[in-house]
């Protein structure tokens, strides 16, 4: 970690205090939250993936793609929309009381369950994405194998399809776990204490950097544990990839009852994760439209698109390079380095942003001492892109790595024996084979950068604003109604890439199917 202490040594009191009063609760909360979100997001993601890939029911194709859309909703936006909907005096309570109905049964929005629900609703798309990938590759065939061994369809799902898809599902859940551990914006809306909020408290309220770093160390330790668990399940992925497993488009025909259940489940997730929060945002945004919809608003939109596009190319290129280095040079050192490089995803954004600023500060000073004015620190795009790379490498790397596993080493040799090596091989063999993975990586990075806040806030050039920054400026003053329009715009801008992603996973070329 590059953050170095510059405070005095008056940290003992702060540390003792944190260990006694803050740590037990926030550690427990972090663990409970991560476990809850992984379970719920995992269950939602896997169920939806299975239904939309392997079963046939009315509106299946529609749900297959709209259920991706919550990917474009930032956690903090979902959080304040939920508070607006469910808090006492919020939209739903008021509506029910207007009709003199009992509103006591509504979700208590400040409960543990509500926070788990909100985080799960924004994070399940990661699991959904990867689980769909798995079921598309081996879904129907695995059920047929199960049936041929005398299992029912349901038994085949649990005994054959699910275990075979486990490495993919674990990959998705890892991303969910890392996001949950690093989250600040969402839990802050609910005033829920986690390790991340404890880091902020130690650093910015108790002014103790060393205590903050020690908590960050615990957080990282948790991430390493989760990563190792995920690695463990991924080891078995190779066997799961059936050779020549042709993609099967035959789907299970559900009975009437099962169709209704599937339809009901998909609609309720879609309602909760998308229709309701967006409705609340619209309800807030419309009366404030004239106030917010100014020339500046459009500059936020263009700034967001510009930044996300640039970051998308930079981060994905780096991830591709990393994937190839890891492929060419297998070994513990390289593997560990890759793991390390992707850990940034689990660090709270602010910690990461400052952690990047400090070494750049040193470089800047050093250049200055050599008589060079680097201007590195001046909110330059370079710093921004570096920070984004550290933060989002894991997001870009995961889908690439999944696809790279499909490229067997003898494919490289075949290419070489035909006289095609080096960059030509990268261009003619590897990049096309990685195609779908690259599209997925680009979309995930685009959407994530668009939603990202702490790094953008800290490193953006002067006068350069994004929609997320605007949402922050307004919500930090409690002006949620006015923040609704930029928040809505983030979601809308996210539609296009998410749509492209769905297209690329739905109409997949043969690559997915063969080895």
């Amino acid at each position, binding site marked *: 970690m590059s953050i170095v202490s510059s405070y005095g040594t008056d940290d003992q009191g702060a540390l003792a205090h944190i260990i006694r009063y803050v740590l037990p609760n926030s550690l427990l909360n972090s663990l409970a939250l991560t476990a809850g979100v992984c379970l719920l997001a995992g269950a939602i993601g896997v169920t939806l993936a299975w239904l939309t890939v392997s079963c046939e029911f009315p509106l299946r194709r529609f749900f297959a793609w709209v259920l991706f859309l919550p990917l474009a909703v930032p956690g903090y936006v979902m959080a304040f929309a939920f508070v607006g909907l469910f808090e006492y005096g919020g939209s739903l309570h008021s509506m029910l009381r207007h009709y003199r109905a009992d509103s006591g049964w509504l979700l208590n929005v400040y409960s543990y369950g509500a926070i788990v629900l909100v985080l799960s609703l924004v994070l399940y798309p990661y699991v959904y994405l990867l689980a769909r990938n798995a079921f598309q590759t081996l879904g129907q065939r695995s059920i047929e194998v199960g049936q041929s061994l005398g299992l029912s369809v349901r038994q085949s799902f649990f005994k054959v399809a699910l275990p075979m898809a486990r490495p993919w599902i674990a990959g998705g859940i890892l991303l969910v776990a890392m996001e949950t551990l690093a989250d600040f914006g969402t839990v802050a809306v609910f005033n829920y204490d986690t390790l991340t909020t404890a880091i902020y408290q130690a650093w910015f309220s108790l002014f103790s950097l060393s205590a903050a770093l020690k908590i960050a160390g615990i957080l990282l330790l948790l991430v390493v544990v989760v990563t190792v668990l995920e690695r463990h399940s991924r080891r078995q992925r190779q066997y799961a990839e059936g050779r020549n497993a042709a993609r099967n488009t035959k789907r299970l025909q559900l009975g009437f009852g099962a169709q209704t259940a599937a339809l009901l489940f998909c609609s309720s997730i879609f309602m909760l994760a998308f229709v309701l929060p967006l409705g609340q945002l619209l309800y807030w945004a419309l009366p404030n439209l004239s106030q917010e919809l100014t020339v500046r608003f459009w500059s936020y939109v263009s700034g967001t698109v510009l930044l996300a596009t640039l970051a998308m190319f930079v981060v994905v290129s780096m991830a591709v390079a990393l994937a190839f280095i890891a492929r060419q040079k297998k070994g513990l050192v390289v593997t560990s380095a890759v793991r390390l490089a992707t850990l940034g995803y689990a660090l709270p954004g602010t910690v990461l942003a400052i952690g990047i600023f400090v070494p750049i500060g040193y470089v800047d000073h050093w250049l200055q001492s050599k008589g060079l004015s680097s201007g590195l620190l001046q909110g330059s795009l370079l710093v921004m892109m570096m920070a984004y790379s550290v933060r989002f490498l894991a997001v870009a790397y995961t889908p690439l790595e999944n696809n790279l596993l499909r490229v*067997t080493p*003898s494919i490289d*040799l*075949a290419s070489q*024996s*035909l006289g095609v*090596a080096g960059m030509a091989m990268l261009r003619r063999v590897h990049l*096309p*084979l990685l*195609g779908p993975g690259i599209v997925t990586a680009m979309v995930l990075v685009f959407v994530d950068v668009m939603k990202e806040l702490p790094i953008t806030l800290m490193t953006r050039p002067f006068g350069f604003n994004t929609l997320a920054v605007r949402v922050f400026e307004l919500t930090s003053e409690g002006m949620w109604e006015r923040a609704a329009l930029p928040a809505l715009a983030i979601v809308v801008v996210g539609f296009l890439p998410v749509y492209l992603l769905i297209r690329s996973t739905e109409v997949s070329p043969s690559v997915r199917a063969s080895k």
Partner: protein
Amino acid sequence: MIHSEHVLASKAKNYFSVEQLSVGYESRILLADVNFHLSKGSIGCLLGPSGCGKSTLLRAIAGFEQSLQGRIYLDDNWLNRPGRTVAAEHRNIGMVFQDYSLFPHLSALENVRFGLYGLSRPNAIAKARHWLGQVGLANKEKAMPHELSGGEQQRVALARALAPEPELVLLDEPFSSLDLEFREKLSREVRELFKASNTTALMVTHDQHEAFAMADYIGVINNNRLEQWDDAYHVYHQPVNQSVADFVGQGVFFERGNCR
């Protein structure tokens, strides 16, 4: 007395030569002091149990692996001599892999066309079509690899290796994943194809039926060395020692041989 390189390489009979080649690792030599020659247009076969270094030898010839010592010559040029080696992509050697390794993102025709980057697009397509026709797959040019049967994938891999007209084609257990009946049929066809195009080929197998069906020259590998290299007739009728005789004579599958 050391022969000059030109003297050795210029002998017409020795279109392809391997001299005193050793492969494996510093800690564990798989094959030591291998010597054999192939004339232009002939087919050689290395026969031996799995895990004895046959494939490693083949990969060293292809340039995927460094040899420990020795020399390799092809058509008057050295490919490999102590301290220096020609990169795989510059050796002009085609290879057919055990698992075929077709490019999954390219159709059958595009796979065959892959190595024809030196030609103009129409010429390359015409040539790829020609070779796809040669292996009997003229009607499958648009098919993607996963849509082809194992035998068809094998033929595409063959056409892909032959299309750039390499000076030498290497085949690594090319028929091992096909069923027995089909294996013999295809090996006869491939031999005819090689003979018709005057292709020089070297193949590796552990199945002596395959070896005798395909090859002009056979080398028997056992006990970490090349025990005999001769034409098929002599290997069968005049084995140099008991182990070669046992193996070839009894027609036993040679799955478990003697290698350390």
